[in-house]
């Protein structure tokens, strides 16, 4: 019988393997990554993610270019190339924008358009659904929190301006990985927490940006004007992960009075607190009655 008649043969039942929940999680994570990046969607959906990624990588490309063209002695003297840790300072805007866009896009849309109900009617549970969303947002954020550093590291090594020994290279690599993971994890938690509070993407995005900017402004004002203990900076969401990144690279950072342990504890508290909020919100959610 020829393959061409397949539709006339009517319905084909499926007796093949059915993969478990981990396959469902993987499929949802991949689908969400695509959504977050605007892939397989309209031009306008792609625009912001792509622009942000470009903004994050341009400085790295420029710095590699400078390292290639200008002799080391001069670049060292005028401090033209930032350290790996300081690179985050150059792309704060890109990271902020990405964090504000990706989390809400990945989480809010499903609630707004009703897909959440379809997902929860599948082998996924509320918990495995959220796990898939985390597994989508973290790698997407790594695109701007790890990618540029890797480009910088590899690029500089190729033009002979990178770490001098293989050990140093590996050390920078490990530090970059750790730093990227820390920043991505913290911001994934924050953006998903904001996204769990509203089903409107725009509100969630504005919430993320406000939380990051306001926490900085308020804590600075309290320390500068009201003589608060500098530990209040642990509440500054724009500062906290970036400061921990400095410590990961073995540098003192901008607030040496804060111990690394307190930074780690604060980061853990923010991540766990946000996770608890998201879980609570989703357990409370009634999908269909």
């Amino acid at each position: 019988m020829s393959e061409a008649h397949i539709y006339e043969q009517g319905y084909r039942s499926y007796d093949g393997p059915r993969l478990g929940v981990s396959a469902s999680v993987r499929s949802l994570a991949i689908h969400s990554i695509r959504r977050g990046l605007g892939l397989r969607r309209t031009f306008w959906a792609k625009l912001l993610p792509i622009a942000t990624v470009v903004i994050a990588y341009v400085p790295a490309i420029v710095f590699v270019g400078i390292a290639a063209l200008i002799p080391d002695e001069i670049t060292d003297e005028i401090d033209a190339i930032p350290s790996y840790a300081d690179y985050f300072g150059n792309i704060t805007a890109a990271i902020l924008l990405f964090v504000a866009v990706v989390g809400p896009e990945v989480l809010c849309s499903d609630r707004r358009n009703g897909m959440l109900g379809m997902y929860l009617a599948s082998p996924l549970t509320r918990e495995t659904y959220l796990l898939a969303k985390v597994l989508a947002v973290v790698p997407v954020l790594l695109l701007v929190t790890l990618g540029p550093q890797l480009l910088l590291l590899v690029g500089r090594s190729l033009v002979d301006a990178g770490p001098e020994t293989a050990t140093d290279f590996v050390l920078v690599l490990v530090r970059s990985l750790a730093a990227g993971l820390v920043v991505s994890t913290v911001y994934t938690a924050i953006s998903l927490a904001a996204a769990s509070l509203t089903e409107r993407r725009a509100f969630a995005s504005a919430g993320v940006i406000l939380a990051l900017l306001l926490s900085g402004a308020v804590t600075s004002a309290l320390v500068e004007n009201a003589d608060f203990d500098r530990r209040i900076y642990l509440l500054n969401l724009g500062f906290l992960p970036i400061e921990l990144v400095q410590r990961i690279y073995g540098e003192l950072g901008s607030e040496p009075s804060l111990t690394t342990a307190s930074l780690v504890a604060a980061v853990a508290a923010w991540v766990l607190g946000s996770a608890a909020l998201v879980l609570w919100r989703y357990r409370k959610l009634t999908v269909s009655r």
Partner: protein
Amino acid sequence: MTTIVRATGVVKRWGDTTALAGIDAEIGAGVTGLLGANGAGKTTLLGLILGLHRQDDGTLEVLGLDPTTAGPEVRARLGYAPEHDALPGDVRAHDLVRHMAEIHGLPSKEAVGRASDALWHVGLGEERFRPVGTMSTGQKQRVKLASAMAHDPALLLLDEPTNGLDPMQRDAMLTLIRRIGTEFGISVILSSHLLEEVERVCDSVLILSGGTVVSSGTLDELRGGGGAFIVEPDGRVDELAAALQRHGLEVEVLGTTRLSLNGDEIEITDAIRDACAELGIGLRRLQRRTATLEDVFLAGTGV
């Protein structure tokens, strides 16, 4: 009959409202209509079958499993098309159906093929690469159906699948549901508040009202059970009625010319034959009054 869903004393409350007040029901293979007015508890029951909520009391068994403890396993074999619009507008129909098939455990390659098949089956083969947002209400309903069946579920739950469809689209949708239940061999629970829909495509019915089962069984059973015999003799109606009552039958005189009898078919027909022979009365008409689902529904819900 294989039992697909078995509910025993299932109670579900939402705050102070009791959505299901102790339901006992058995749903077998084939197409089953879940009939009831809005707020009768249909969607709540579907939600419990899917394991989305936990019942407050009673036990529920779906495909031999308990959805409250084996939710993912149960849901892997179920397909669900919710009542309301539940699709992202900017995703292509094929991408969506394929994604839902993968979510239900199909390997990627199978999911691609079966997504195409499912969209062809619902009549959207040519349109399968269009973004869902550009489709009509009728097409969206069919995309939902395709994404509920692409993974070849054992049981398909359709919540008001004809909502928002015009008469032509409704007709096509009902024909398709009938095909799914017969040709495709997938059991279907069709939730609807429309009697004629259920009457047209379902083998059996479960009628809910105010959170209780008022009637359940195959369509034939329900219709037959509610039926009565109409007898129209060529005169002497009262004499015949009295004679039949002597035979121990429940007789109701309708107007001046007809009688209505309830009870066992053979008993009734034998009694009529004997009574007519005794009295020498001729019969103009002896007819079974078939109940419509509406009669059953009205009798059951007491509206």
